[in-house]
């Protein structure tokens, strides 16, 4: 199953592109889309707007196609296979900055062009899940808290 998530807002251009790929038979797996507040209702995918948690969908999906928001963090942390598309339907280009920066320290598959999603899905089939090369902040925080606690 391929799971598509757009977060709490809308990303109609991504859902439309996924629907087109499903119609053309380019994506053979079952597709479930979380469409948020989007107006476009896919015809070739199951869909829902919002759920309290999408964890179960993420855990059972063979691939997640995500907008470039905070969901990417969970996908990286859990080493889930995913493709990220920056949501340029929204004002500002915050997600592009975020994904571009993450890509410098990781091997994520991403684009700011929804037309690339088909190509990225194909690439993902032979790539391992992405991970971020960064030190864990919690280690330094733990040390600081312990030092200050013991001093007092």
């Amino acid at each position, binding site marked *: 199953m391929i799971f598509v998530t757009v977060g709490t807002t809308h990303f109609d251009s991504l859902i439309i592109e996924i629907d087109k790929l499903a119609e053309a038979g380019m994506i053979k797996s079952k597709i479930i889309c979380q469409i948020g507040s989007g107006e476009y209702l896919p015809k070739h995918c199951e869909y829902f707007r919002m759920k309290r*948690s999408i964890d179960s969908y993420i855990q059972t999906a063979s691939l997640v196609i995500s907008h470039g928001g*905070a969901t990417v963090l*969970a996908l990286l942390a859990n080493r889930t296979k995913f493709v990220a598309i920056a949501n340029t339907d929204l004002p500002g280009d915050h997600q592009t900055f975020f994904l571009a920066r993450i890509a410098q320290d990781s091997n994520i598959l991403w684009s700011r062009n929804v037309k690339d999603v088909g190509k990225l899905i194909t690439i993902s089939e032979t790539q391992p899940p992405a991970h971020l090369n960064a030190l864990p*902040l919690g280690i330094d925080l733990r040390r600081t*808290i312990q030092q200050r*606690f013991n001093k007092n």
Partner: protein
Amino acid sequence: MDPIPTKQNNQTMQEKIPLLVLLGGGGFYQETCFLLRQLGDGFDLTLIYPKGSLKPENPPPGKLVTMREFSGRGKSGFKGKLIDALSLIPMIFDGINLIRATKPAGVICIASSISIPLLIAAKITKKDGYFIESITRVDDLSITSRIVRLLNLSTFFYVQWPELAKKYPGSIYSGSVISA
């Protein structure tokens, strides 16, 4: 006065360090969960979530408590901002009450606007405040972070990208909540 027995003092008694942690909503909640996983054991956590929000599903281990949030949400313009400003005072009192009840070694906040009253409460009660900017802020700080920094509300101000630490002297970069 005898030292508090801790692992560092090579005594056998293990004392968990009490911490007050703001869970926040959405992506901030996720980031906080990742951070708490990195922090590991040895902490007695009290976890704050906004009153009026759904109780978190599968929260990290710890005691769950609520705190008021800004009442101006959903109201635009000057009226919304005025309501937010007025709701700051009861929120600070909520923070002070929580700190007095839990006696934490410190207060930890990731990015949420509720960090502001909570860190003010920490300052008033002379507790360490640890503020962490969201990992999604790569090239610049959020409005909340700017306020925390401008008013010097936190004892420690962390960012999660090295270029932000260079841009804002005094901020600390020592990694991110997502690690390899």
